[in-house]
């Protein structure tokens, strides 16, 4: 079987998975909630005590993207995987000349495409709101507001969206990895959420490691920092969008992208390691 044929099969599985995912009520309702929340950020601004209006809206939008995106990435991936198992469609599919790795890759790509749609919608809504508020501020303050250049770098909103999408990729791959040895959807979702929390907070362990004295604890914390990917790396909202002292260099973005891709592929391969032994 050639690589082209294999690619076609992965594409077909991904396409079907994506269509199935888009039709899910869960995706639509979560998307609606997220859009509503981002759109209502101007309302929540009345609870703000320090940051400027545009900064607050941006923080709020980025928070919604991270929070709801993480929920969607885990639940959608787990659901899409276990739907095939419970409906026995996986059995039919794998009875044909389809490798288990192709099945996993197809499922992952379908879920990842779904996350791309979600990320795009949220970043577009956020950009729209920022544009609206920026126009209102400029109308109020006049051209003086733009004396030091534009207030918002809209490209950065999409850059943040892209980096979050890379993170969702790792998260979806981790979910697939957990699903590959788990028997239930619920177990997969719970374990994946714990993995998310650990990955998000592992930098604290690394910080603690640097201040520890030599010993088994230091070794353990060092290992912990290596085993789990560092999700905090993608938390770059403070360095984007506005004129900040330390702008995110392109090389850093490239490194983050490479890091995300490596971990995504690695977790899919680890999922394959479990899944190939699994009785369906």
């Amino acid at each position, binding site marked *: 079987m050639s690589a082209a044929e294999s690619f076609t099969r992965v594409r077909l599985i991904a396409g079907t998975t994506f269509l199935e995912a888009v039709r899910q009520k869960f995706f639509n309702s979560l998307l609606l909630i997220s859009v509503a929340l981002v759109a209502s950020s101007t309302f929540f601004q009345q*609870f703000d*005590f320090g940051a400027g209006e545009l900064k607050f809206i941006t923080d709020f939008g980025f928070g919604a993207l991270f*929070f709801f995106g993480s929920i969607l990435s885990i639940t959608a991936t787990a659901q899409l995987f276990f739907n095939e198992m419970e409906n026995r469609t996986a059995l039919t599919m794998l009875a044909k000349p389809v490798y288990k790795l192709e099945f996993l890759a197809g499922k992952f790509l379908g879920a990842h495409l779904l996350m791309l749609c979600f990320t795009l919608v949220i970043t577009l809504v956020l950009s729209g709101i920022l544009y609206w508020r920026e126009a209102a501020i400029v109308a109020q303050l006049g051209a003086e507001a733009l004396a030091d250049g534009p207030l918002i770098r809209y490209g950065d909103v999409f850059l943040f969206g892209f980096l979050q999408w890379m993170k969702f990729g790792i998260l979806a791959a981790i979910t697939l990895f957990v699903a590959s040895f788990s028997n239930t959807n619920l177990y997969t979702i719970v374990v994946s959420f714990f993995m998310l929390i650990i990955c*998000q907070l592992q930098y*604290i362990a690394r910080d603690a490691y640097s201040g520890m004295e030599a010993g088994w604890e230091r070794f353990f914390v060092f290992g912990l920092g*290596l085993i789990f990917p560092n999700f905090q*790396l993608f938390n770059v909202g*403070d360095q984007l969008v506005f004129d900040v002292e330390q702008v995110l*260099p392109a090389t850093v973005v490239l490194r983050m992208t490479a890091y995300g891709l490596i971990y995504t592929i690695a977790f899919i391969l680890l999922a394959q390691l479990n899944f190939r032994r699994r009785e369906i």
Partner: protein
Amino acid sequence: MQSILQHPLLQRTLRVLTVLLALLLLGLLTRPVEAPAWQVVKAGQPEMNLEAIEGSLGQGLVIGVLGGFRAILADFLWIRTNTVWERKDRAKLDAMIRLVTTLDPRPEFFWINGSRMIAYDVPNWRIREEGGYDAVPEARQQVLDLEQAEQAFKLIDTALDFHPENARLYLEKGQIYLNRLKDDANAAEWFLKASQKPGAPFFAARIYAELLRRQGKNAEAYAYLKELHRELPDSPFAQKGVILERISELEDELKIPVWERYRP
């Protein structure tokens, strides 16, 4: 021996160890890719003080700590801090202020208002708890003021790690020395520091000179005000007229001969 090796539990343990080893190797391999990027990202993120949040991790705070909604969560917690302040629950107030400033150390509002609550309000509560202003001896009141002021200073010092050029934080420390501790010498030091920061209000320098006068350092105050008058811009906010009046007062007090008096 072979049957032991094929035991499902052993097989499963081996698989788990293989996965862990693979992830460990992956972590080592990706370190050269990740570490330089992490250095840059970390430098741009507010430091997270775990001690301040560990007691509240079970209260839905994880979402905030994870990176999303950190600002809005801090805002809502600040509203809760005000409720705690209204109840005069000083132990909880301290914890809440630390929590809010840890979650979002960017707005100076949290630091300044938090330090005001600690330095000005809590001593009143503690004095009332001990029987009120009439019952508590003056010396004890001063001890309580000092204890609370020190806590507020610690908070402001932490704030200065995040905002080292923020004049308002230096002013806040000076005001606590001046208004709560009645310590003119230390207050003067902090008003001077505040006046040297970018965007400092003009009154910081004037108060510094007044505090020098209060300490009897008239000659020093005179020299400082003359220098200040020369440096200040001709803006109505700079109140150069007031400075000139004070220079003139000091010249009278110091008995400066007419021919040596300051001429702007």
